């Protein structure tokens, strides 16, 4: 215990001495965060400084082993580090799929050479990764993927297209699922492989959404030659790797929506939606003038609160040592639907002010609301559709027959 207290004191002192004051309060979200990689351009020199100093201590990946560029911290120590950073309102020095996805995957499934090659670069923010799973034809049936990997000596020759590869246009490497064998069950014959985006034959085209620009891309492989040594785990055992990673991803998404709905309560004295409704549709005797809207806002707030309490209950249960069940499916469904309802409500509150796409006559935040509403429609599709999640609950939680 006194060791941890000592660690806390040292950490705080180090952070106070090394963290640029200018970064306090800057979030480490998709927009403001540092993704790193060869093409990365820092929008502030202090962000670069902060990354370098943290990477040097291994604290971009606090719990990873020191030999791969991590901090070698215990989870208790990592928690203290996070707490102290939060106390100083410091952003994470680095974000991205390297740290959250391929890194943990390599730690679990990669061989020594792969770990030594890739993990330090991830920790230092030198290489940015993207994910190549879905394909135009695969959808919810991910295992039906068709991108072909044909063995040619020490290489696989890869042909096919991946969709929904977020930020592929800014990434240096991609981890991808490819089909090395189409003869057996569809889950067999899938290989998890690492591909350098600079390789000849790799090309990227951005995907335009109904809400406008997006980080999503299509990534095309045309006779791309990838060394067999880039296969993670066994050839043909990619589905095992993918499943572990997908489970991880869904928990993250569910967490995001769980947390988002909790945070939504914080804005404004009366909460965000009541304030918006009051400002756009008026008040009477200190209450929202439109009683029907008031009822809908209250219903939304209440279900959000009950949902947040359910997320909390699951966490409390996990802390108390209960085995987690399939809650992540429920969180994914409910959290995404709440987010959609939130935007539907906002759009209805805005009324004709929500009709804009761009340009004159519309308020900037209203335009953003309209785009966000459209974007929210994808929440119940991406990361496992609501239909797939409902199937999971029916089968794995309720035990209903197939």
């Amino acid at each position, binding site marked *: 215990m006194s060791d941890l207290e000592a660690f806390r004191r040292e950490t705080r002192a180090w952070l106070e001495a090394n963290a640029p004051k200018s970064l306090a309060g800057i979030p480490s979200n998709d927009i403001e965060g540092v993704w790193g990689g060869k093409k990365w351009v820092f929008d502030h020199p202090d962000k670069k400084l902060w990354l370098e100093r943290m990477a040097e201590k291994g604290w971009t990946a606090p719990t990873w082993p020191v030999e791969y560029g991590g901090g070698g911290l215990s989870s208790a120590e990592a928690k203290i580090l996070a707490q102290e950073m939060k106390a100083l309102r410091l952003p994470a020095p680095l974000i991205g799929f390297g740290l959250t996805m391929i890194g943990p995957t390599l730690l679990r499934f990669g061989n020594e050479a792969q770990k030594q090659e890739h993990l330090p670069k991830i920790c230092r923010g030198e290489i940015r990764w993207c994910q190549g799973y879905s394909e135009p034809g695969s959808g919810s049936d991910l295992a039906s993927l068709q991108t072909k990997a044909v063995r040619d000596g020490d290489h696989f020759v890869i042909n096919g297209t991946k969709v929904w590869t977020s930020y592929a246009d800014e990434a240096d490497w991609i981890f991808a699922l490819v089909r090395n064998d189409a003869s057996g069950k569809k889950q067999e014959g899938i290989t998890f492989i690492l591909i350098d985006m600079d390789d000849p034959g790799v090309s990227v085209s951005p995907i335009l959404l109904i809400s406008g620009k997006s980080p999503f891309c299509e990534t095309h492989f045309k006779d791309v030659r990838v060394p067999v040594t880039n296969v993670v785990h066994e050839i043909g055992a990619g589905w095992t790797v993918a499943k572990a990673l997908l489970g991880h991803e869904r928990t993250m998404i569910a967490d995001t929506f769980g947390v988002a709905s909790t945070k939504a309560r914080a804005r404004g004295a009366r909460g965000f939606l009541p304030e918006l409704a009051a400002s756009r549709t008026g008040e009477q005797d200190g209450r929202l003038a439109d009683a029907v809207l008031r009822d809908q806002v209250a*219903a939304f707030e209440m279900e959000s609160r009950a949902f947040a309490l359910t997320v909390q209950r699951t966490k409390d249960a996990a802390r108390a040592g209960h085995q987690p069940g399939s809650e992540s499916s429920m969180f994914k469904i409910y959290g995404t639907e709440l987010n959609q309802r939130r935007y539907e409500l906002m759009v209805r509150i805005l009324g004709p002010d929500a009709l804009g796409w761009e340009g004159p006559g519309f308020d900037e935040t209203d335009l953003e609301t309209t785009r966000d509403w459209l974007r929210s429609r994808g929440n119940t599709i991406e990361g496992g559709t609501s239909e797939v999640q409902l199937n999971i609950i*029916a089968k794995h939680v309720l035990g209903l027959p*197939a």
Partner: protein
Amino acid sequence: MELVLNEDQELIAKTALDFVAEHSPVSRFRALRDADDRLGYSQALYREMAELGWTGIAFAEEEGGAGMGLAELALVVEALGRKLAPEPFLGGIAMGGTALSLGASPALRSAWLPGVIDGSKVVALAHQEAGARYDLCAVKTRAEAAGDGFRLTGEKTGVLDAVGADAVIVPARTAGQPGDRAGLTLFLVETDRPGVSLERQVRVDHRNAAILRLDGVACGAAAVLGQPGEGADLLEAVIDRATVVLCAEMLGGMSEAFDLTVDYLKTREQFGVPIGSFQALQHRAARVYMEVELARSAVMAAARAVDAAGAGPLDADVRKLVSLAKARCSDAYVLATNEGVQLFGGVGMTDEYDIGFYMKRARAAELTFGDAAFHRDRWAMLGRY
């Protein structure tokens, strides 16, 4: 606030579920109903439950209770709600008992609370008058000063667990008009006093309930709970707590109804397969599951928040959680039982199957202490919008 059961609570929940499953299967409720039993519950079984400590679970140790709270009482009542066990925990403990605990003078308290806690006495609370809907202040019953005391005249309806009760706590108007907050006073009225009459009502859920008629019933000043004229605050504090207990009962009922439905989906065959293999039914069952889960979280949070407030007044945040629990439970219980009857199909419509009991219970509970719309409005009002 931790939304997880501690070891003591786990044990209480398990004991309650086991006891109720063994001593009070739904067939017992059915038999009492079919017999038109006046009480609608078993005094002997109620005393057994009291011996297990259930009736006193939420009362202070110095009163002879277990010194726990609504979080624990909720576990017992949830188990009772699962099997529709009709013993008077809602009217006698959550309403009457809580009113005594929050408002009774030392004399009243020592006269009544020990009996309530050991299960030998039942004290009900008459919160409802005809036409009042969910307005606790819509009280016409008058308490007119008469000598040192009062004379009570009026009529209450739907007085829960009043049949067989030893006393009923009666909100009456010592001043003001129906609907006014000020001028309400709570009196403890013994049911064997001259001018008191009770008539059994037959409700859709067959819960023990009565019309209480007061015809110039004499009450001394010593029968007053709380401060004269300020009974609205006390009544509201009691009903908020009773609402949480009702929610726990609803949670038990909806969980059992849902379990019955899922079991039926697994076993009932149509077109050569279990009907639970039809995806449309699977998705609907999954939706019910989620609503029940959310209701459970809301009930746990409300019980813990009320417990944290102790015997004091409940602030807006706590009252919002009470409204949250009642609104979610109302909607989820109705959904679970509507879907339940539909998925049972024809047999679900017959009196022979139990699922219909839960549908009736769901609706009756929804319409007690305010429906979901009422509590959404209350939530908004407490949130100042």
